[in-house]
């Protein structure tokens, strides 16, 4: 295994473009090292992106949007009061990943690019409308977070492409987001279902919404029918039931020891309702 720690993304991209065999980027390493040590994936080329300037920065831009470096850790996100104030759902989703020790290293970008359908921060990012900026042999591009996962363990990134930043939109007025997952115990487990919701209100009425489901299909889903079920409503019982039905209808899960198909499908509906209620309360400025 060759180890490189380039000083720029251009260099990182060139290294990856010219490498043969298996290439991995090293952010927090909490997936890469587990796979390396269990001999699931032994990269031929490992490119550590943490020596690149600014990769740990968390910046609020003048328009209120956020730019997160690709090595900013879960712990650094949780310790950022303004980020947690704007996007509590994204921060709480990231914070659910692993233990204190894992939080000290794990990143949003690693969670997204590892390609797990159960990745906790991904439904929250998708609901929030997060995009990622990518540098590759053909230049730069910016795409929506939901455009990255292709299938379990696979992404749409092409050879030589490296994610250079995570962009979270401006929260704006009267908005709120939330993420909930179901796991068989209270800490340190993989999501059986995860739901991210972000919405905006005009008075009591929902004017915008994005709902995303994790762990119920080969990739994280953005479910338009869930958004349609609550837009225009005050999140009354009729809207909540429609939301739950749309969430369950979107599920195409696996059966495993953590949860059956039937269970995951039902829980997706239940969690969608609960997450929507929290996002709604947050949009109203209430503690939730």
């Amino acid at each position, binding site marked *: *295994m060759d180890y490189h720690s380039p000083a720029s993304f251009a260099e990182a991209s060139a290294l990856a473009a010219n490498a043969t065999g298996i290439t991995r980027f090293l952010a927090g*390493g909490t997936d890469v090292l587990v796979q*390396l*040590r269990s001999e699931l994936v032994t990269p031929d080329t490992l490119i550590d992106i943490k020596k690149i300037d600014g990769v740990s920065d968390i910046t609020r831009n003048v328009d209120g949007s956020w730019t997160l470096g690709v090595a900013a850790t879960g712990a650094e996100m949780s310790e950022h009061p303004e980020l947690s104030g704007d996007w509590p759902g994204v921060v709480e989703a990231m914070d659910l990943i692993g233990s204190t020790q894992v939080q000290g290293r794990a990143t949003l970008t690693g969670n997204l690019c590892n390609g797990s359908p159960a990745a906790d921060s991904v439904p929250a990012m998708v609901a929030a409308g997060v995009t990622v900026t990518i540098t590759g042999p053909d230049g730069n591009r910016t795409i929506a977070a939901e455009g990255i996962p292709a299938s379990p363990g696979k992404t749409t990134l092409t050879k030589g492409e490296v994610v250079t930043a995570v962009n979270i939109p401006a929260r704006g007025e009267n908005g709120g987001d939330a993420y909930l997952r179901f796991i068989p115990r209270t800490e340190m487990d993989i999501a059986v279902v995860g739901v991210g919701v972000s919405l905006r209100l005009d008075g009591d009425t929902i004017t915008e919404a994005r709902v995303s489901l994790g762990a119920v299909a080969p990739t994280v889903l953005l479910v338009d029918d869930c958004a349609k079920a609550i837009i225009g409503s005050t999140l009354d019982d009729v809207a909540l039931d429609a939301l739950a039905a749309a969430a369950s209808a979107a599920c195409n899960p696996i059966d495993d020891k953590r949860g059956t198909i039937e269970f995951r499908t039902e829980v997706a509906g239940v969690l969608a309702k609960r997450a929507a209620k929290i996002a709604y309360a947050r949009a109203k400025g209430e503690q939730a």
Partner: protein
Amino acid sequence: MSKFHVSTTVNGDAVEYLCDPRETLLDCLRDKLNLTGAKEGCGTGDCGACSVSVDGRLVCSCLMLGVEAEGKQIDTVEGIAEGDVLHPLQKNFIEHAALQCGVCTPGILVAAKSLLEKNPSPTEEEARYWLAGNLCRCTGYDKIIRAVMETAEELREAS
């Protein structure tokens, strides 16, 4: 594959070692620096027995490469006592019988010290969540939590 030359600081001392890029920080601490306090429990980041602090951040040394330690400040369980004088956490672990076989203890001491540095007045729930990534198969955790809470109180009174 050529080896990497790494210069880093462990418990305040400048150290150097040569490592293969596949070797973890845990391997380097134990096999090259003879600091065997950090233990390999699971090797997959679940058990916390290999916990160390890197630039003030608690991490699993089994999930970090030795080459990544270049230029960092590493703190391990070996640096917790001041010479022969045990840290209040260590004294309270003995006092409360918060250890039996001892495999998890170095990691838990490092993790608990890091908690009290960040949050001198944790609630019991906060302490339990902070230490959720440190598994102990002997004590049932209660004695560990009591030792940590007692230390927090002592340190608050002393300051």
